[in-house]
């Protein structure tokens, strides 16, 4: 596949991520922070997110498996996850966390378990999408092309 085609594919894919709500404006901000002095910023931050959050999800799972669930602790974890997903623009993960927190407040165990599943699902979906995005970018760069800037038209 030649570079122009790859670039178009990337643009379409990125657009779809926004349209389907996987990404929000914050991701665009992240992209704008990337420059020659910081060429891998987006990949770095997103990787950090996935590493960090993987651990959080494990902690959440074990916290909800306790005999006496400490909802405050669960809420604290979810708050962290909500914060970091918000920082990278992973909108669907963030929204799932918002719902999760309301169940924590109600101390509704069943609701929390369901939310955990939902969050995990969104998390792995997002991870998948990001991996595809970065792979497409790498392919373009390897072929000697440049990454087209994400245009903010009407999403």
């Amino acid at each position, binding site marked *: 596949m030649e570079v122009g085609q790859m670039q178009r594919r990337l643009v379409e894919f990125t657009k779809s991520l926004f349209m389907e709500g996987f990404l929000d404006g914050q991701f665009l901000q992240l992209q704008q*922070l990337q420059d*020659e002095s910081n060429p891998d910023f987006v990949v*770095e*931050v997103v990787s*950090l997110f996935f590493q960090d959050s993987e651990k959080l999800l494990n902690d959440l799972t074990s916290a909800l498996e306790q005999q006496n669930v400490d909802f405050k602790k669960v809420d604290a974890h979810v708050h962290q996850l909500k*914060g*970091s997903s*918000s*920082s990278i623009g992973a909108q669907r993960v963030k929204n799932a966390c918002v719902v999760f927190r309301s169940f924590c407040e109600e101390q509704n165990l069943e609701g929390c378990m369901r939310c955990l599943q939902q969050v995990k699902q969104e998390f792995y979906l997002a991870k998948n999408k990001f991996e595809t995005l970065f792979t497409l970018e790498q392919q373009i760069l390897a072929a000697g092309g440049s990454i087209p800037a994400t245009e903010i038209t009407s999403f």
Partner: protein
Amino acid sequence: MNSAGSPNVVLLCVLLFYPPVFSTIADKIDQDREFLYSLCALFSYYNNLFQQLFSNPINLIISVEDTGIGIPPETQSRVFTPFMQVRPSISRTHEGTGIGLSISKCLVGLMNGEIGFVSIPQVGSTFTFTAVFNDACSTSKKCKGQQVKGQGDSGTSEFHGMKAVVVDTRPVRANVVADLNQCFHTIQSGNCRIDMVLLEWEIWDKDSGLSAIFLDKLRDMKPRVSPRLFLLSNSISSSGMSGATTDATGPSVIMKPLRASMLVASLQRVMGVGNRISCSNGESPSLSLRNLLRGRKILVVDDNKVNLRVAEGALRKYGADVVCTDSGEKAIDLLRPLHDFDACFMDIQMPGMDGPSKEFLPGQSSSEPRENISNFHLLILAVTADVIHATHEECTKYGMDGYVSKPFEAEQLFREVSLLFLVTPLSNDVECPLSSLPPSMFKG
């Protein structure tokens, strides 16, 4: 001036208002130091500017004129000698260390220049020095594509047509008004509206009764007609206010030395013009934030690694020097006296940061404003994802200067960070060649 071959010569004149009478030697040392640093900052600023404009060595002549007490003729031959002081005869109103000028002479010598002065007692002194600069950045990436237009000219058109009254007791070249009564008279009687009043701190401080009356008179005027009041101060210790006020009618403090971009940011913030940071002039919003944040040392405190990284990335993009830490305790350690941070972004949703645990925060008790932390020039901003419940009052109660949302939103960030300019001058270590000079230079 030409860039073809012959050396370029630039003459730069600076007017200085001589600082007020000091009560302690420490004040005067501070003032001397600030004066030198201002000079260095001025120096560096124009150095950077000219290096981009000219590709050949340029000779710079800088002239600084003040309206101080002057130097008696019989002592003029000794002023550059270390530890010599000019002693006024009866009342000892001016103290000093006596090394300021000898340091200046060394600096000038290092810059291949010469220094001299003319002085008339009771009128003032004019010091002049020369320096030669070589082009140091012809291949540096920083210089490429940097718009010189954006550097020196930070004027925006928002203030076109506005009228300002400057109130100062010292005779200067420009028309200024000498006291508060005259000022009010000017405001009242003029056929055009006065938008702002720039007032020397010492006039405000001299007679608090008169100042209060003046403020009342301004408040009594119709809101649309009443000018905004700015106090120009040399140092925080003399300003007596613990911070900038955002109250609509109270005066705002702007620190001297004045820099154009700083002044614009302060005026914009208080006057409420140019609230959108898209400036007329084609200056991009991020350039405005870069003007504010460049060179500032900022501490970001957040227990979430991802948030820290993103905040750091954003602030670094605007040229700030960022240090990250993940807890309140570590932050307090970093903010012990003689720290050189300009601002601290503190996540107030960290565990242990609610209610009584906010003791970690500076200013926890009204009787000891920020004593745990040396905050002499520190702007503290709360960072929260919960902007709906965050309020200015809540923040100031705990000693914060304001709040920003997480993730950062550019306009809000600009607004809150511009508070930096209402209270503090640029940190002493930035842009000053003094700190990079070897100590051996000061021998003999």
